[in-house]
């Protein structure tokens, strides 16, 4: 299988090697066409965002206003802080010039003169690697004003690296923009959407690192070629990051629609000690967990995973064997979301804390059966009631893990109903969604 994002070419991270292997020919080809043509090709290719929402990349670009007297901006989201997700760092390290070329083409398509690559602060090394690649590309005239001469075009754009400082929430696109502007990284209320009102109130597009790295091959080889790779509704390859209880954890670039079991057992080498799998989170920690007996036949693409009761997210596959303490896992995850909640919306700020407290109570052996319902109730009251998707990200793992592993959780709590807790559940249910509506 041909790899698109991380090709097996030695030293492709070096500019000369990248150029020798056809680098920057896609940009040259793109600049000879109209911006609308490029957007059209990306739309037809079926490329969907790799940052979590799997939204059509071409469609997102088409939201950018054609006529505006304001400058337009492109942001590349390399905040990559989702637990279980570690794919973008591979691109910064092993194929940064394809990302740069993708940025040039994207800027041309949406009419942006400036692009920022937002990289999480902990990635000191990868910030340096990306900056080095960018410096080389500038020196060689592939980026900046020198582009005009290099490509024989009127168009040029500048690319800058912006380093974050340790906040999961900044991976949320509107939070990322606030962070980049030098504010606290609070998410913004949408609408207005970034294409109307983004960085400094100007039209802005925000795309994931992996998404944009797919652009040059689409332009070179054509949208038809790309649209035929993997699942037709979510074509292309996806960088699957496999972690947890597998023999060979790591990032695997595979066609969309590859079987989850294939990835775990063939590519990642199966589970150590041939143990059974208790639980898999297929798309990074925020996505609904699947039971070990739900994995058979599940394909890894947005539509198939939706049908299987989860979501593709960032393609970070976390595998847990039969000896895993799921209460501990969920308590740890809830601690994470509590820690990372920006504190702007009450349901998330308070709710994530409650989830953590209840789970720690169960973990300590002091939980009652009513705690399980309380977890679902609290999760339901967070979900849909917050400005950004961190609410869902915190609620989903809890709601789905508790409902899908109900027996497991019930075995960990006292059968006696804690009246104090039960009363709380009762009074809160008045406003919460009925439990019957919670999908199993």
């Amino acid at each position: 299988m041909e790899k698109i994002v991380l090709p097996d070419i030695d030293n492709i991270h070096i500019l000369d090697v990248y150029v020798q292997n056809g680098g920057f020919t896609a940009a040259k080809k793109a600049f000879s066409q109209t911006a609308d043509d490029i957007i059209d090709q990306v739309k037809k290719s079926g490329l969907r965002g790799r940052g979590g929402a799997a939204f059509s990349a071409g469609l997102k670009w088409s939201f950018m206003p054609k006529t505006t007297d304001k400058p337009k901006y492109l942001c590349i989201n390399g905040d990559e802080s989702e637990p279980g997700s570690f794919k973008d760092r591979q691109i910064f390290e092993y194929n940064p010039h394809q990302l740069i070329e993708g940025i040039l083409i994207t800027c041309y398509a949406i009419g942006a003169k400036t692009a920022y690559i937002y990289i999480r602060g902990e990635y000191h090394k990868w910030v340096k690697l990306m900056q080095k690649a960018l410096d080389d590309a500038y020196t060689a005239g592939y980026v900046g004003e020198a582009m005009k001469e290099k490509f024989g075009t009127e168009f040029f754009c500048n690319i800058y690296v912006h380093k974050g400082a340790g906040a999961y929430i900044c991976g949320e696109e509107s939070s990322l923009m606030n962070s980049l502007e030098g504010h606290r990284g609070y998410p913004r209320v949408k609408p207005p959407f970034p294409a109307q009102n983004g960085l400094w109130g100007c039209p802005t597009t925000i795309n994931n690192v992996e998404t944009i790295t797919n652009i040059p091959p689409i332009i070179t080889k054509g949208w038809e070629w790309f649209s035929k790779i993997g699942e037709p509704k979510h074509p292309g390859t996806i960088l699957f990051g496999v972690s947890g209880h597998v023999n060979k954890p790591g990032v695997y670039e595979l066609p969309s629609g590859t079987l989850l079991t294939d990835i775990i057992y063939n590519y990642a080498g199966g589970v150590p000690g041939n143990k059974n799998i208790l639980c898999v989170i297929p798309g990074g920690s925020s996505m609904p967990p699947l039971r070990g007996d739900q994995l058979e036949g599940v394909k890894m693409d947005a539509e198939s995973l939706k049908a299987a009761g989860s979501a593709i997210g960032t393609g970070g596959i976390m595998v847990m064997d039969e000896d895993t303490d799921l209460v501990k896992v969920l308590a740890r995850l809830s601690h994470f979301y509590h820690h990372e909640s920006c504190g702007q919306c009450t349901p998330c700020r308070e709710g994530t804390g409650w989830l953590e407290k209840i789970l720690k109570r169960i973990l300590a052996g002091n939980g009652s059966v009513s705690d399980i319902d309380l977890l679902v109730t609290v999760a339901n009251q967070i979900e849909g009631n917050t400005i950004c998707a961190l609410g869902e990200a915190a609620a989903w793992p809890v709601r789905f893990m508790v409902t899908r592993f109900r027996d497991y959780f019930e075995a960990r709590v006292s059968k006696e109903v804690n009246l104090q807790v039960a009363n709380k559940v009762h009074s809160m249910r008045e406003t919460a969604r009925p439990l019957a509506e919670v999908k199993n």
Partner: protein
Amino acid sequence: MEFKFTPENIDRINKEIAKYPVKKPAVMATLYIAQEQNGYISNEVIKEVAAILEMTAEEVLGVVTFYTMYYQKPMGKNHIQVCTNVSCMLRGGYDIWNQVKEKLGIGNMEVTGDGKFSIEEVECMGSCGTAPMLAVNEDYYENLTKEKVEELINSLK
């Protein structure tokens, strides 16, 4: 104690400012530079950063406290960050964290008496495929075992 950036650092800050249409977005980079020069973000640092970037001190403080990577007190020369999030936890992240705590005899965000070490339990660092991991200042150490951690800490000066 008044804080002033060195002339070299002023140059670096100006290069950061040049990336953006206004000065304010350079605050994150400027705070990193300040932390590098001063060791931590003091109130004097905040006032100076605010003056340079034409922000209020409160705005700068808001940024400092929002993120986890700006420290408002001096940390150890070797700031050890251990990830205990799920992917690391499944592969022994807590064992590493407990080992580091025990070996250095300090708790989360504490500094050893000689100022050589400080430790922090951190959220996912993006090393899930090479878990468990820890970082010393800016450098990642991955695929850890207890022996490797022991050796690493002994080698740090």
